[in-house]
């Protein structure tokens, strides 16, 4: 297998993996497998998929550092974009289905509750990263592009905070994500300088 083939296989695996949760949701939607509270069910599933893909995207760089398998870096962009996609569906369910575009209610629900405000901030950060993820923007922003895209870590932190703030005290689910994110941040920063010096690229 040559490099091009391997890269194509890798990115096909990422696309398929990232689309499977969507396929499952559509199947469950069509066959009515969503339990008594479908709005909540699909809100939770899209949220969980968005945060999982975001953390996977953030895991690429540390994984390369551990394994030396550089092609993984190519997955950061699609995984990040899919995370944004699921977050957008998550947000649309909230605005369009749960609150049925009732903007007075939405304004109150979004701006008065800290978990929603943080979710919205996460979403906006992901949107900026998604829009500027193209080659054109990369060229236009030059050096600043890399700085801007470090915000992916901020998005990860914000998403975990959103999760922590929306569950009842004592519910552990978000803390698993917090632990993974903490590991990723640790894996990244102490070596950042060393690595930049060693490889001169990123």
């Amino acid at each position, binding site marked *: 297998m040559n490099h091009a083939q391997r890269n194509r296989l890798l990115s096909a695996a990422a696309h398929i993996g990232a689309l499977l949760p969507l396929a499952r949701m559509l199947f469950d939607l069509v066959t009515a497998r969503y339990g008594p509270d479908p709005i909540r069910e699909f809100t939770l599933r899209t949220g969980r998929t968005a945060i999982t893909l975001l953390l996977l995207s953030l895991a690429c760089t540390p994984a390369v550092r551990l394994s030396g398998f550089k092609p993984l870096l190519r997955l950061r962009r699609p995984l990040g974009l899919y995370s944004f996609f699921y977050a957008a569906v998550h947000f649309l369910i909230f605005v369009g*289905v749960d609150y049925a575009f*009732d903007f007075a209610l939405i304004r109150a629900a979004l701006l008065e509750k800290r978990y929603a405000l943080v979710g919205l901030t996460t979403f906006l950060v992901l949107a900026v990263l998604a829009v500027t993820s193209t080659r054109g923007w990369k060229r236009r922003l030059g050096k600043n592009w890399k700085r801007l895209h470090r915000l992916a870590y901020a998005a990860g932190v914000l998403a975990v905070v959103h999760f922590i703030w929306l569950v*009842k005290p004592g519910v552990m689910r978000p803390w698993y994500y917090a632990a993974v994110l903490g590991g990723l941040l640790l894996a990244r920063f102490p070596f950042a300088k060393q690595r930049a010096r060693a490889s001169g690229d990123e």
Partner: protein
Amino acid sequence: MRDIPSSEITPEAVYLSRRAFLKSMGILTAGAGVLAACGPALVPTSTSDPSGEQPSAGATTDELGDPLNTYDEITHYNNYYEFSTDKQRVAELAEGYPTSPWEIQVGGLVHNPKTYSLDDLRKFEIEERIYRLRCVEAWSMVIPWLGFPLHKLLAEVEPKAEAKYVRFESVYDPERMPGIRQNPWYSWPYVEGLRLDEAMHELTILATGLYGKDLLPQNGAPVRLVVPWKYGFKSIKSIVKIDLVAEMPTSLWMAAAPNEYGFYANVNPEVDHPRWSQATERRIGELGRRPTLMFNGYEAEVAHLYAGMDLRVNF
């Protein structure tokens, strides 16, 4: 009057049970006087069949005209952290949980402490009460409970004059309840409390069934509290102990997050939970949201209990 399309003509069974329902409301207004004409639906149990296989209820709607939730919804969407924090897994994890034999010890500041068996509970006259249940997570259901007013049981044990509160305790069974083992940081057993006048209120019931059948374990079998004007977590499940006490009891949720969960926990669209807005709710089975009613729609019956209290402070 508008013409009624044939599709809206009520089937006979529904019509008959609705008549029974209206009749019972009439009887109630005349008899008890507590419940106004628009008070909560109350139906004699003769219209339902506790031993029956099919879930059945004496009416199809609550007194506001909103349809009952289905038996399937009510029995498969449960907040019961002793089994699981996942509402949709509680039913399977609780399946077969032994709820007979069972005892409830009623004691504390009473003249006649008594341990009730299930047979003792069956001696109370069972009524159907169609109540809205509003969860603090901002979803709600309409549920046809079977049960009896708590004040009837309290009258038997005769609270002493010093008794100011009622403290309830759920069964604590870590061996059979995986949620207790997985979430050891909560102060198990589950504890809830009511002020004595709240406990004595006509709307406060001990429920033993729903939809004409005995309660299933996931709904708090064999006997649970139902306080319809308070958030669902006040309606403690699978009770083993009831104590009359002088001091305000600390509930499990008050201990877990005192800034989020107060003792009163009255449904109130104007007082937000720090996590969730309480202005609206999602009725299970409906898409979208509906406004939350003050005291969950029981304002006329219960507002007087809180006269002069600041409900923002006493949340």
